[in-house]
């Protein structure tokens, strides 16, 4: 189904980069000349506390902002979002639209039989991605898990191009970025993981690309056809 707009809800835990992921995805969409808006929702800035972010991408001007109540795609960055209810909603998938997609970062299935049935009734496709493992293998650090979440949703829905994602991560990590004390220290932490900044950009992009291709393949194999129209 080709849509005029795609709404992506990212449910993660503080420190995982869900906020950054939504911003990078929206920046890429903007570079693709699409309309995009991204914003986060969190309480006190605390590691492992629930943190959500939202990214809306479309071919007409977007006014809607704030918490995304009726998403097309939900990305779960951490198993605890499901297993410990670290989500702004219970269940984590409430509000998902028919024909939607759920992407879960986990090595093992986490949905109860009842949840799986409810998602199935709504014709929602579920992808388990070993995001943290991919990040460790490709980038050499679990801090790049959010890049796998960006790549997979882009591969499945074609909401942004790989070229624009490359430009967006260069813009986000290529220069000094001040958002808050918490963000600044996390930025410093990830920079220390790489010998050079170019390496950080390169490895993160490689992680995005890996997950993108995985998403493309999964969507083809499972006939998932949720995508956003090309920019006018």
């Amino acid at each position, binding site marked *: 189904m080709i849509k005029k707009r795609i709404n992506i809800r990212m449910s993660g835990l503080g420190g995982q980069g869900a906020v950054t992921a939504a911003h990078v995805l929206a920046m890429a969409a903007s570079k693709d000349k699409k309309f995009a*808006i991204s914003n986060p*929702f969190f309480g006190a800035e605390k590691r492992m506390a629930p943190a959500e972010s939202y990214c809306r991408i479309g071919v007409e001007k977007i*006014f809607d902002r704030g918490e995304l109540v009726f998403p097309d795609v939900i990305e779960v960055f951490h198993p605890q979002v499901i297993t410990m209810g670290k989500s702004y909603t219970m269940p984590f998938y409430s509000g998902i639209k028919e024909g939607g997609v759920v992407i879960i970062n986990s090595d093992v299935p986490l949905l109860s039989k009842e949840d799986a049935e409810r998602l199935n009734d709504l014709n929602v496709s579920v992808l388990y991605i070993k995001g943290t493992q991919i990040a460790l293998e490709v980038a050499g650090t679990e801090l790049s898990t959010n890049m796998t979440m960006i790549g997979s949703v882009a591969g499945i829905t074609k909401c942004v191009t790989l070229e624009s994602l490359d430009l967006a991560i260069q813009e986000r990590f290529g220069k000094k970025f*001040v958002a808050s004390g918490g963000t600044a220290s996390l930025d410093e932490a990830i920079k220390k993981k790489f010998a050079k900044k170019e390496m950080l950009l390169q490895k993160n992009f490689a992680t995005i690309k890996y997950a993108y291709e995985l998403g493309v393949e999964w969507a083809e194999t499972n006939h998932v056809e949720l995508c956003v129209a090309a920019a006018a």
Partner: protein
Amino acid sequence: METKSVIGTQNKKGQVYTDARVMMNEAPRTDAFFTGSEVIKEAVRRASVDVMIAYPITPQSEAAALIGELFAEGYIGDYFRGESEFAVMGQCAGAAFGGARVFTTTAGPGTMRAMENFPMWAGARLPIQVIVTCRGLNSPLSIQPDTLEISYLIQTGMLVWHAETAQDFYDWILKGYMVSEEPDVHLPLALCCDGFFVTHTKDTVMLTPTDMCLPPYDPYRSPVPCMDMECPPVRMMRDPFVMKSNYISYATHASWQQEVWAAVERSRKHTIAWLDGLIETENGDADILLVASGTAVSQGREAIRLLEEDGIRVGLVKIKTIRPWPGEEIREATKNAKHIIVPEFNVTGWLAREIKASIPDTDRLVAAPHVFGGMTMPPEIIVSEIKNALGIRTEVLAGRG
């Protein structure tokens, strides 16, 4: 005495002091994809601000920190952190008394803590600009958007504007100084937005050139003498009227309050010229009108789209300024409306109350939907409220939770 205009000359960063009308209305613009906080920084970069005083409180902390970066780059005259919001607003007053263009930011409980200073600013005719990134006030603690604090600010004698988007914010920070520094206005401006929905949202914004900035503040255009700190006026500081407790002292105070509110009224003509009207109307001839300010306008725009798909035509009235209050404009814009829907991000519905005091046949007005304490307002609940008003049955929305 020879006077010389600074227009066309450069500041120490090489920015050219530019006529504000040229800068805002004619200069070329370039697009940027920024958060609201980054947009505040970019506006302040071009605002020739002398003093910025910061105190952290979510969701304005990012903007305050980013302006610290601007100071480090040399764009701000002076920048420091106060010890509380109350202290910050007092320090802002000191800097403005001394003739500086002053900027600060606050939110929610910070606004409330600083509140005593706002009528003081207005009474002292200090054209300070404070950005208010509205958030929840009451216990239990919330850092999420809620516009309740605006209902307190509108009684202070300050100008109060309510931005919908980061673009409004960018333009209005710069235009705000131009309005509030007019000699017949000379009042502080509380430039409000819904926290997070504007401050933390990345959106496309059209910026004026980096190498242009506003002309500096001229304290000699103030309608009251600017303060000579070495020789403060005795009448104000050491022998105020209140000490006399006689008829003259009360009459003086009363007439000065009237003068402050008259100055709010006088800001109308400048504000209309700079903001292109105090309200903005779309499809104003529709039977059903959404009347809103801030983020509720954006959510209303999405609701209007959804209703169009159902063949229901709804118009929009966006209220840009709460003080001065566009009562006549709203009365005129809503005169033929059969249903007036006022969605708000607060529990008391202060905007609906203001509107009701300005229009006839108030039974046309639906003061809903209301969300508060950090809840979001999905367009679907506005749609459902409008359908209710029209007597159309809708499904109960239980999207989340």
